[in-house]
């Protein structure tokens, strides 16, 4: 993730070292990581693909006459859930590349010798990954506006998407970084993260007509992604007040706290070089 095209490691460490002397380490790492993500074009390519997907979903929704009833709330909900899901996926993939990618490219050693605490390195990488989530959210605004205008739920939909999406993105971003710190191979880290995300998204794709007993309820509430999306649906489609189904946000909040706490506590021990890996 922090890879620079040329020279990869030295440029990075010099920037970080010079910056660290002037300001907080995490801020320097975050700035460098964001610059790396956005000026290399990787972030914009991901955003472009995201916008193509969102365009397809929005166009199909707006041409589907069957979705025209119920004040288009279902359409807004569908597009918003899609935006949150794909935005979180992009955040997870970027954070899953954070540590294992550095190890694999041989740039971690250089980063570790800079005068920046390891917790600051982790915090900087998490902020860079979250910058992608915020960018995907900004891109989704015009799509939500197209569907929600005239219905009076534009502000509510955007506020919901931002709050719930950020909460889920923080939790999964922390999990992605933990996986990345534990895995030696970048491929393993990204594959494990995507597999985790698929497991988390699976319950949201179950047909709503299926009988939903206590087991389904437990499964839904234990899943940070499914429960976050259920909270969005309950407000946008069912018209519930923001306090009515607040319990749906317990799992995303706990995930962010537990994964973030684990990252803070175990991060300094996990962010290290491992035997048998090219250290540059």
């Amino acid at each position, binding site marked *: 993730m922090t890879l620079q095209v040329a020279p990869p490691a030295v440029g990075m460490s010099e920037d970080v070292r010079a910056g660290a002397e002037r300001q907080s380490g995490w801020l320097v790492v975050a700035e460098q990581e964001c610059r790396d993500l956005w000026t290399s074009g990787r972030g914009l390519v991901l955003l472009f693909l995201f916008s193509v997907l969102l365009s397809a979903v929005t166009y199909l929704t*707006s041409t589907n006459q069957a979705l025209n009833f119920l004040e288009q709330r279902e359409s807004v909900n569908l597009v918003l859930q899609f935006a949150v899901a794909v935005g979180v996926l992009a955040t997870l993939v970027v954070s899953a590349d954070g540590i294992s990618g550095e190890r694999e490219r041989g740039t971690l050693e250089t980063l570790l010798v800079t005068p920046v605490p390891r917790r600051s390195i982790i915090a900087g990488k998490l902020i860079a990954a979250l910058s992608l989530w915020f960018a995907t959210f900004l891109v989704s605004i015009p799509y939500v506006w197209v569907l929600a205008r005239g219905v009076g739920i534009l502000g509510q939909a955007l506020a919901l998407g931002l709050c719930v999406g950020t909460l889920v993105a923080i939790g999964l971003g922390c999990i992605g970084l933990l996986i990345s710190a534990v895995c030696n191979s970048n491929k393993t880290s990204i594959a494990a993260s995507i597999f985790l995300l698929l497991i988390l998204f699976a319950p949201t794709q179950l047909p709503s007509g299926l009988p939903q007993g206590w087991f389904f309820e437990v499964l839904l509430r234990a899943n940070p992604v499914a429960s976050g999306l259920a909270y969005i649906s309950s407000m946008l489609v069912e018209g519930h007040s923001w306090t009515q189904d607040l319990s749906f946000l317990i799992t995303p909040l706990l995930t962010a706290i537990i994964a973030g706490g684990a990252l803070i506590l175990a991060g300094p021990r996990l962010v290290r070089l491992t035997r048998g890996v090219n250290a540059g």
Partner: protein
Amino acid sequence: MRKLLLIGLLVGIFTVLPAPALAAAPLDAKVDAEPAQVSTVLGGRFKITTPITNTGARPSGEILAHLNVASIEGSVYVDPEDWSSNRSQQLSLQPGESRKLAWEIQAVNAGHFAAYVVVVPYGSNVVGNEGLVISPLVNIDVASRSTLSAGGALPVVITVPLLLGLAAAGTLFRARRRGSGR
């Protein structure tokens, strides 16, 4: 002795013979509906209230008020569950007591409809031949509307990817030039 035999015979007959069907007590209640007329657009939410009064001299026991919606013009299929998620309310009324029940409704079809509330007895002792009490109809006119159109969405679904694609291509091109310049 003969008297005793006669009594025993009568008791035996009444015990063996099936009990006659119980006469169901009629439901002495009155249901109104307010407002009488609702005009809304597709997707509009509104509320109707139904005051229920026990007009009898006895407590009503457990009764159930149930909301129903029917299409009264054309051949529009109506699924009342889509119109209101909470269509049954259980209550009991003392003689002379009145209670207002509120019903949240969302118009999910366009056309001309009627909503009404029917009060039925509730519980395991319901025989089946009790009278029902039905409210007057609430006329519902739902106008069609379609604020969502493919034409309206087209500028956004084309412009956003186009701008992002151009920005991504420009950034990649500059990054490549910078890389080859070093």
